């Protein structure tokens, strides 16, 4: 299939439709509104349904209903809107339903700003809703990768009966890049015999539910969920790493920030510095093991994020105190520059930090 130049937000819609998503429930919020607009135009053409809900809360509960009815369904929003959806996401995870949730992050907290950010890392990976639940969280760095992750993400959601989140940011949503839509690798997708479709008089009623009023039952349910999350950790970690075996400094960054880091690395290498990169693609399950491959003589890890330091905690967990972990970030919608990253790396190499 030929490459098409597309805006990130619209490419998300095209990828979802390619993956067979037929239902989108959303609400306008900058900087992701082009996606619901795209779905409003395109879903009817494939016999799908686009519906603008009265709020993000209603939208996620429509997703909860549609997912329980066995549909391939998604929603999208941006940071504050994703905050409104947290209870619904917790119900969807508790009821073990598949769906795709896209967060095109913007500056926070509160109303924040409309420029890009990565300030919802904790919310996405630690869970913004109640209970011990997890989302599979993908952080694409470019639009082609986002498209691929969405197409595969729907299968991952169905395979594990779990919500999947695409964590983008204002930049990736608003910029245009050439993309193509390739089918995902084959996966074992179980039948949705649990869905609410009407008994047809042929089976016992199906019940979509996350309530277990007896404590023993809820504990057993949680143990079952944890077993699923363990399997996901074993099979679904995705990471890109570069030159970490003999680097003096390793940069860890995800999403569009990682692209800025690559520019900095290229410049540093031209000046003779040995710099590596670890770019998590799954933020959950986090690629902790990748950090074990780092050159034992590495002088330090520099975590770069568009926030005041969130993934840096996971980097500290990953290195288990073996290396000093440094942080450099911009927030509020400000974007870190290659030069600033270069300056930070040089400080680490020079041992001043």
């Amino acid at each position: 299939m030929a490459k098409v130049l597309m805006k990130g937000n619209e490419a998300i819609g095209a990828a979802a439709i390619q993956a067979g998503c037929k239902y989108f429930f959303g609400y306008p919020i900058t900087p992701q509104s082009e996606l619901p607009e795209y779905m409003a135009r395109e879903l009817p053409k494939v016999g799908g349904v686009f519906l603008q809900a009265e709020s993000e809360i209603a939208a996620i509960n429509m997703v909860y209903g549609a997912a329980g009815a066995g549909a391939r369904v998604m929603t999208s929003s941006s940071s504050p809107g994703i905050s409104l959806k947290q209870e619904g996401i917790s119900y969807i995870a508790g009821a073990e339903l598949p769906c795709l949730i896209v967060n095109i992050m913007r500056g926070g907290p509160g109303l924040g700003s409309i420029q890009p950010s990565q300030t919802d890392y904790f919310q996405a990976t630690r869970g913004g809703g109640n209970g011990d639940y997890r989302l599979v969280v993908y952080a694409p760095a470019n639009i082609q990768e986002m498209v691929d992750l969405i197409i595969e993400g729907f299968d991952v959601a169905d395979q594990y009966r779990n919500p999947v989140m695409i964590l983008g940011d204002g930049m990736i949503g608003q910029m245009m890049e050439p993309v193509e839509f390739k089918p995902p690798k084959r996966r074992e997708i179980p039948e949705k015999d649990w869905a609410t479709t009407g008994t047809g008089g042929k089976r016992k009623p199906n019940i979509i539910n996350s309530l277990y009023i007896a404590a023993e039952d809820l504990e057993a349910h949680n143990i079952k969920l944890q077993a699923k999350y363990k399997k996901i950790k074993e099979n679904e970690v995705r990471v890109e790493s570069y030159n970490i075996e003999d680097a003096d400094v390793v940069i860890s960054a995800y999403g569009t920030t990682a692209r800025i880091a690559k520019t900095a690395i290229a410049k540093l290498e031209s000046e003779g510095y040995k710099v590596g990169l670890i770019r998590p693609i799954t933020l959950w399950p986090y690629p902790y093991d990748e950090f074990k491959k780092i050159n034992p003589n590495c002088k330090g890890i520099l975590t770069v994020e568009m926030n005041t330091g969130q993934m840096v905690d996971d980097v500290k967990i990953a290195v288990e105190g073996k290396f000093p972990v440094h942080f450099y970030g911009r927030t509020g919608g400000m974007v870190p520059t290659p030069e600033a990253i270069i300056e930070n790396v040089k400080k680490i190499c020079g041992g001043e930090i």
Partner: protein
Amino acid sequence: MTIVFERTKGLTDVETHYCPGCTHGIIHRLVGEAMVELGVLDKAIGVAPVGCSVFAYNYFNCDMHEAAHGRAPAVATGIKRVHPENFVFTYQGDGDLASIGTAEIVHAAHRGEKISTIFVNNAIYGMTGGQMAPTTLVGQKATTAPGGRSEEHSGRPIKISEMLATIHGAKFVERVAVNTPANIRKAKKAIIECFKVQLEGKGFGIVEVLSTCPTNWGMTAPEAMKWLEDNMIPYYPLGNFRRPEEAE
């Protein structure tokens, strides 16, 4: 010898957890019977709320979905949009629908969502132990209105049926009560008529059912039925507020 009254197939044989004399049980029966008589039980998908009827998913003999508090109309919207040929209903209490879920019910009606809602109004929060609801009457005592609801402090109770009847997409709006056999029979007719509005694809339908809460009203079941008659019906007049013909 012919059987003139027996347990409907619309209900499972699970004994309900409701308090003695709570009219939820009656309303469940009417909904079950209506689905069977309309021949839609096999394609029915119900959405249970959070509140006393949170376990309704164990009682209705059809596919069920447990919604978050107040969100049943949104969940039902998601289900109906995926399965337009199925019969989709929500069963909600007044804390669920008239408080946290007002936006969802208003917008389901506003969209003319082809779902049916059974709205059980017992003027109190039952499951959580008797707090004031948006439908608690002025002067009626509740654990969060110890001196009785005061209009100056928290306004007059919401009249949901009258409110929703102003919305074009609401093609059927009726308020009934289940405090006497005669009223119960009328309530069943209204529920069947409301369900037909969905089945004929006309739009959104709701039946508000005045209901009792003996435990939290602090009365016996018979006293509660009398209290409903003397206090709730005068403030919440029974009757139809909107039928498809006039809703054109």
